[in-house]
């Protein structure tokens, strides 16, 4: 946590695709089931927890992604310093985990966030992904968890032709190289 090292060094730009790593960003995994948990999160972050499948909510700083009926991911839009990451985690941990409303796990080091931009990103992803992006493309804020080149990923449709992709740290270099390869051919 204190020494942040990444295997991904530079941003890459291709004719219609731009790929860059956005790190370190805050990421917190939330789990909880009851109504108290949902209202508490809403109060703490002043963001309503998305309960519809494959959706997200957020404000200027934070995004809340739906992962499963009782699981969510919080992530920050911009790079943070590691102190702010710890302070939000502590706050949520004290108010939610300690009161047994749900569970809060800091997954900042678990996921790597990669930003994809450009009109051809979906063509690039489709080269190694079974997910149907037709509706996903146009719905802002849509979230999906799927496989990309056999690697588990979370994809968040931030804006039109602007995606944030989360991949596990150990797979990040492999997927990064695959994306660079794949981007050359679309």
């Amino acid at each position, binding site marked *: 946590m204190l020494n942040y090292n990444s295997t991904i060094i530079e941003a890459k730009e291709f004719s219609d695709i731009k790929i860059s790593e956005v790190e370190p960003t805050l990421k917190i995994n939330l789990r909880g089931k009851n109504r108290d948990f949902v209202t508490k999160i809403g109060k703490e972050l002043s963001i309503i927890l998305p309960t519809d*499948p*494959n959706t997200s909510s957020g404000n200027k700083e934070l995004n809340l992604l739906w*992962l*499963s*009926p009782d*699981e969510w991911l919080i992530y920050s839009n911009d790079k943070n310093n590691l102190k702010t990451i710890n302070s939000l985690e502590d706050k949520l941990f004290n108010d939610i985990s300690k009161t047994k409303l749900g569970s809060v796990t800091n997954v900042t080091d678990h996921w790597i966030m990669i930003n994809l931009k450009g009109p051809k990103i979906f063509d690039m992803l489709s080269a190694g992904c*079974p997910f*149907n992006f037709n509706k996903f493309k146009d719905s802002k804020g849509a979230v999906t*968890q799927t*496989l990309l080149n056999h690697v588990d990923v979370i994809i968040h449709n931030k804006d039109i032709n602007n995606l944030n992709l989360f991949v596990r740290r150990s797979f990040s270099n492999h997927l990064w190289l695959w994306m660079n390869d794949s981007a050359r051919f679309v």
Partner: protein
Amino acid sequence: MFLINCPYCGERDQSEFSAGGEAHIVRPKQPTELSDDKWAEFLFMRKNIKGVQLERWNHTHGCRKWFNMARDTSNDKIHAVYKMGEKPPIK
């Protein structure tokens, strides 16, 4: 390759799922009083019919939730998908 309609996430490719074997097998209430044969029957013996079978599936690479499915084993046609704890809608 076929599509499975996850009760939580919607239609996804079959490669995101993993099969969990036959559904609705009830655990014996008093395992200590069972004979070894009966216990083995509960643990290992599964129907493997040609036709519609009730199965458990897990959306491993998606929401990671378990659910049940009525699938025809001869042609992979999915007749129904329902959540854990719900009664099978057919048969």
